[in-house]
């Protein structure tokens, strides 16, 4: 196993508000890391600093040998290798499903139009939406949108995938389809960092679960350690709340 991602002493502040207070984290190749924690604890912020959608205030983030806090690093090149899936899908509203997926490969000269089209159709097939290639984004359901968003994030053949609460905005009956796609990805050996409240998914798929609260990693371990033998009182408290709804 080799290290894909290494975060050291990561601090992020917005004005006076210190959101991340010195995070240390390593993610190995093929590892699936699930981040849990109460809302407002800094999970999204942590995830978004990993591909520099938020610039870190201090600390270092090294991905595949590139220090992304270093201004000399070509962040666009690094991002090509990190797929990101958002809570609100963020499909491009001015394009069809196919165009959404083909945009990055064609714009960034990874492949020509025909190759990109072939690849897009393949990706749509893996997320179970092959017939939606020409569909308008507006005609999709939330679950379909999120699966297209995953296909789009995969189009640049990334080594790492980041998921920020990918099912939180979905109607309950759609959640299963999206989680299914993510499980398949995990089985194929994709390195994944997933922020989610789906504890079932975490138990089944995660190699490691990280509990973030108040800008710090309070506890981490295997799913059994975290869910069956939580040590930190805050984690116990948190699990009580989410598991007994």
């Amino acid at each position, binding site marked *: 196993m080799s290290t894909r991602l290494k975060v050291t002493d990561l601090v992020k502040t917005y004005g006076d508000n210190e959101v991340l207070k010195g995070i240390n984290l390593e993610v190995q190749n093929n590892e699936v890391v699930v981040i849990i924690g109460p809302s407002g604890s800094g999970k999204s912020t942590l995830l978004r600093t990993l*591909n520099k*959608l938020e610039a870190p205030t201090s600390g270092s983030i090294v991905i595949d040998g590139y220090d992304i806090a270093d201004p000399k690093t070509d962040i*666009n*090149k*690094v*991002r*090509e290798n*990190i*797929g*990101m899936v*958002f809570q*609100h899908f*963020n*499909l*491009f*509203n*001015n394009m069809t499903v196919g165009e959404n997926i083909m*945009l*990055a490969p064609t*714009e*960034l000269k990874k492949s020509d139009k025909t190759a990109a089209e072939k690849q897009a159709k393949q990706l749509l097939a893996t997320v179970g939406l092959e017939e939606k290639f020409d569909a308008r984004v507006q005609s999709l359901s939330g679950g379909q949108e999120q699966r297209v*968003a995953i296909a*789009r*994030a995969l*189009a*640049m053949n990334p080594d790492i995938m980041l998921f920020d609460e990918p099912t939180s905005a979905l109607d309950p009956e759609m959640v299963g389809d999206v989680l299914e796609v993510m499980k398949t990805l995990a089985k194929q050996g994709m390195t994944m960092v997933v922020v989610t409240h789906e504890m079932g998914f975490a138990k089944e798929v995660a190699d490691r679960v990280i509990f973030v609260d108040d800008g710090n990693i309070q506890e981490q371990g295997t799913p059994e350690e975290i869910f069956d033998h939580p040590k930190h009182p805050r984690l116990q408290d948190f699990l009580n709340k989410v598991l007994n709804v």
Partner: protein
Amino acid sequence: MKRKMWAVLTTLAVFFACLVTFNLSATPAKAETTYTIGTDVTFPPFEFANKQNKYVGIDMDLIRAIAKNQRFKVKIKPVGFNAAVQSVQSGQLDGVIAGMSITKEREATFDFSKPYFTSGVVMAVAKNSKITKLSQLKGKKVAVKTGTSGADYANSIKNKYGFKVVTFDDSNNMYEDVMTGNSAACFEDSPVMRYGIKQGTKLKIVTKPAENGSYGFAVEKGHNQKLLKSFNKGLANLKANGQYKKITEKYLGKDASKDTDSTSDNSFFGLIKQNKSALWSGFKETLWLTVVSIIFATIFGVLVGLMGVFPNKFLNGLSTTLIYIFRGLPLLVLALFIYTGIPSLTGQKIPAFVAGIITLMFNEGAYIAAFVKGGINAVDTGQMEAARSLGLPFGRAMRKVILPQGIRIMVPSFINQFIITLKDTSILSIIGILELTQTGKIIIARNLQGFKVWTIIAIIYLVVITLLTWLSNWVQKRSKL
């Protein structure tokens, strides 16, 4: 032998004589300078456009006759009294002849010629008015035209007689105000008033000329002294040879012929027919101004708008500042600043049309920048984040994802702005651009048919705006935006 000598000498003499004559007539022609002279849009009988749209009147005939007499060329710029005066101060124009009274105040900034006309201020009232004396004006309104000696006179006595002064920018509006009864009286130089009444203005003069003053031709103080000398010399020549008398009598003498306009067809269609070519060229100028300035304003506005959303603090600040300044300045002030202010700072003349385009580019462009910025900001930030997370650089993400969505939001604002631009071109009449509004002013100066002519002009604007709206709706539908 002797005879032969004579023949040779005569030939030589003739030859030299020819050479000299040729030189005499050729040299001055070559050296003929062209002076640009500003004048008022409408100040009959001193300056006004006749039916052929040529500027005539005492001032016009005089300056042309003097130019001919003194062998220089003149280019007349009927930019309006205030603009002409300011343009001479700023060096945009070489001189001004616009029934301008010689005053101590003005002599501080201008060098005046010898007086070429003596005038005095009279009071005129509506035909059916009972007012005959200044003392009857108590508590009433009095109309004057800006910068005239009539205005100075009114202001100097308004406290004594207890009336209120209302100021207008041209004579027709001032007369109109008295005829409609808004103002009780107006003060105007006697030749102007007399001529106006002869043209059918329904007013009567009720006082003797007061505050006699002299009109002079003016240049910027300390500049164009050669022109001033030529004017004085030419004026003296014309007075001596009787031409001066002929010119003034043509407009003021007992047998001053009525302008044929007053007997011509003053119905709507008559007015349109008579002024067809003037209206058409004013209309074309308005369209041309609109189209060119929309193009420049769009370029300027889109650039400044994009600067406002670019991830760079300095550019953001610059964008905000530019929008703040050019949206904050009244269009009229901006136009006068660019046309007369900039040349007095740089010493570089700017043609009125160019100044007009620059004015509209900045003003309309600032509005465009504001809604370009707003349109882009209205696109969900998640769209930009998704594009950037795929590795697309900022510019590419902007072009492929954000702008296409932002433009859809901006289209109605663009159409609105085009219509506003068309309307705003009318303000450029202040710097003398012969567009539709200025054309209207000039036609009215001649025929004093303010209501009908403004109706015609208003209809033309409405028709163009309607067509423009239809066109843009059609384009909008066609492009499925």
